[in-house]
């Protein structure tokens, strides 16, 4: 009797233990991710916005191509191969055996519909901005082949298509929605004002990811996000401030594909004098400020694309901190009649990036040491943006415009023309020689393209000194002890659940 009872007890115990660990094992496949902001909506054609893209990109919906951040090369994803048929047309072969999460077949027709939906004027698709004013005309060739034609040559069409989320043809064409349906490994299960739940789709065409369920929540204070991972309330946060990244076991720095700079009003005196522009670049204690405000891993920038980007010129030497020479240059300019006493204004944006305001204060103090009359205007985003594009506001003082630019596409074509050509929307540069180089780069492809962009960057940095590049910005992730996650260049705008693994 006693023996039987003991055996029964042991069996029960094992059963319970099995159940518990079983449950634990099941629960161990769920993650909670805390984001810095609530996604405004879940419309895939707006996924270029970081708040939306973090949840949707490569989780719920996917793209034809995928940019490998380490190599900068475009690789296949939903499209398996492609070729440029003529100057204005590209042909893509699509992957077989893929279906959308609602059962609709993935084929050329569906891709054509997705592209047309992106360009639909009735919708406000943010992702459209990558294409500028180009008109795309996609067409079906056969079940798994399509052609995409453009009205001007687009040598980087495959790269551009890496931003277009392919959605089910059943999604409303003329309406933006909050229920995205794609081909990705996760389905949208729940979404309300406090959380978003993604559940693994077992019909996914690719390798099944480890995470079975992911819950996204959001807190705007970095300290709270960091605290949540520390207490175990969350497993991962893709962005915390440098001052919260205090634990080297859980906090990892990563280049987040943003580069900061001050754009100079080059056409307005005294900023039209190259000596003044050089003085501005060497008057700043770059090392001291970088380490103090942005973390020891921040990288001094000489150009406006991050390392690894096609066009990145690693031969450029940074301007060194040399306040003596800076003062001398200003005096020299003054002696030549350049009006260095003109009132200059720094146009800064509230909450632009962590410690942005502090960096502006520091730089203003250091520039004032040169004897310049320089003041700060901290503006709210909607106000700041008036200075971003041409035409710039009339009657302004010569401005030093604080700017942060994101380029994780691997191609400098998204950066150089808009910033440095005479017609460029953000540009204050008017240099025909530079224009020619950039034009050639835009129509070239492959290595030639990268070389030409690198040449453009060299000219901008060494000869023209068109701006004051600051840093290649770094972000910090905090990764909880349960999971395995390596951040990369895209982490700021995408959180790929398939890249999350479990420890032990």
């Amino acid at each position, binding site marked *: 009797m006693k023996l039987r009872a003991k055996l029964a007890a042991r069996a029960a115990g094992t059963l319970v233990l099995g159940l518990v660990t079983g449950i634990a094992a099941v629960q161990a496949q769920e993650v909670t991710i805390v984001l810095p902001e609530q996604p405004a909506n879940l419309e895939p054609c707006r996924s270029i916005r970081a708040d939306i893209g973090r949840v949707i990109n490569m989780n719920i919906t996917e793209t034809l191509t995928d940019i490998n951040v380490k190599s900068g090369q475009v690789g296949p994803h939903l499209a398996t191969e492609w070729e440029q048929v003529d100057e204005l047309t590209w042909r893509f072969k699509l992957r077989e055996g893929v279906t959308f999460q609602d059962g609709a077949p993935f084929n050329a027709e569906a891709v054509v519909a997705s592209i047309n939906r992106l360009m639909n004027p009735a919708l406000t698709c943010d992702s459209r901005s990558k294409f500028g004013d180009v008109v795309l005309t996609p067409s079906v060739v056969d079940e798994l082949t399509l052609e995409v034609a453009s009205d001007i040559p687009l040598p980087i069409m495959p790269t551009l298509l890496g931003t277009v989320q392919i959605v089910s043809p059943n999604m409303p064409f003329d309406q933006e929605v909050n229920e995205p349906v794609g081909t990705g490994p996760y389905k949208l299960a729940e979404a309300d004002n406090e959380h978003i739940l993604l559940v693994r789709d077992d019909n996914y065409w690719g390798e099944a990811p480890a995470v079975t369920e992911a819950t996204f929540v959001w807190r705007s204070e970095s300290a709270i996000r960091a605290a949540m991972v520390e207490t175990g309330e969350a497993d991962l946060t893709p962005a915390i401030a440098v001052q919260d990244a*205090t634990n080297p076991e859980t906090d990892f720095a990563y280049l987040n594909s943003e580069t900061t700079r001050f754009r100079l009003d080059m056409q307005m005196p005294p900023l039209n004098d190259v000596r003044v522009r050089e003085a501005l670049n060497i008057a700043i*204690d770059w090392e*001291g400020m970088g380490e103090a405000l942005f973390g020891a891993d921040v990288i001094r920038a000489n150009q406006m694309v991050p390392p690894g980007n096609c066009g990145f010129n690693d031969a450029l030497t940074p301007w060194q901190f040399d306040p003596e020479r800076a003062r001398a240059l200003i005096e020299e300019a003054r002696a030549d009649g350049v009006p260095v006493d003109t009132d200059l204004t720094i146009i800064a944006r509230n909450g632009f990036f962590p410690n942005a305001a*502090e960096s502006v*204060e520091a730089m203003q*103090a250091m520039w004032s040491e040169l004897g310049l009359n320089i003041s700060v205007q901290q503006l709210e985003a909607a106000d700041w943006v008036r200075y971003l594009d041409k035409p710039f506001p009339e009657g302004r003082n010569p401005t030093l415009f604080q700017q942060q630019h994101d380029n994780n596409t691997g191609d400098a074509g998204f950066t150089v023309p808009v910033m440095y050509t005479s017609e460029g929307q953000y540009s204050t540069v008017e240099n025909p020689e530079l224009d020619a180089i950039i034009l050639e780069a835009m129509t070239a492809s492959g290595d030639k393209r990268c070389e030409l962009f690198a040449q453009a960057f060299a000219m901008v940095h060494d000869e023209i000194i068109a701006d004051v590049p600051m840093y290649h910005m770094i972000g910090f992730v905090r990764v909880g002890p349960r999971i395995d996650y390596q951040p990369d260049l895209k982490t700021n705008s995408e959180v790929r659940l398939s890249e999350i693994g479990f420890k032990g």
Partner: protein
Amino acid sequence: METPGETSSAAARTSPIPLPLRLVFRDPMAAAAVVFLVAIAACALFGPMLIGELVEKPNFRARNMAPFSLEQGFAYVLGADTLGRSLLARLVVGARNTLGIAAAAVLASLLVGGALGLIAGYSRGVLGNLIMRGADIVMSFPSLLLALIVLFSLGPSIPNLVLVLAITRVPIYLRTTRAEVLEVRERMFVSAATALGAGHMRLLFRHIAPIVMPTILTIGALDFATVVLAESSLSFLGLGVQAPAFTWGSMVANGRGYLASAWWVAFWPGLAILLTTLSLNVLSNWWRTYSDPHQRWRLELAKRSKAK
């Protein structure tokens, strides 16, 4: 034997120091409050002239330096902020903007709200209702939206900030004043004065207003803290005073990210705000006791117990 009353009046006749001052210094808390307020007023008036550069120039070697060490000199005894600037220096200089903005906003809203409240409470007709509905509109207008609109269209300057803060506070003084006036105007002395031929304005400003003043001033003293804190919240949301200008409130808002790693950046200015409010309130309570004929004996009694 002399009675306390005789003692004080005898003392009043002979001492050059005015009675209120002497009574204040008998009470240790009130005395401390006066000393503190005088000190920060001095900071506000003379601080920027005396301190100067320490406040603005970044000193990266001293960044986030912890307090209570004299390594980098006396100025850094309270520690340094992210750019290595002395917190003590910034506290002293920040007093001017902080006190200035708060005082201006409180004064403006007190005067406007009080005046409107007097009228609204006294009037028995449409005017009163109109004023109250106007106050309702202002009170329901989200202060954030108002701040954004004013600061966007008129520019993010300090006077505009004062304007925003003042506008949002007016309804409070208005409603409180009106409530008190509603009650006071039914009292006997008002009917008496009317019977004696007092006109409306005279009644309002000479008779009713002084009765209502203590409550309003109490609220004003408390409101000072609210305004300083509201300005701090505006800074938290990015709408407050803009760099390089700063107030204690903006120092706390900007330092909040460092609470886990460099607590002193946000702590000292927060403490300064707290002590200022505390002092104002202690003084206002003291003044309320002093000015009320029914209550003054408590202060004078305190004097006698010390003389024992």
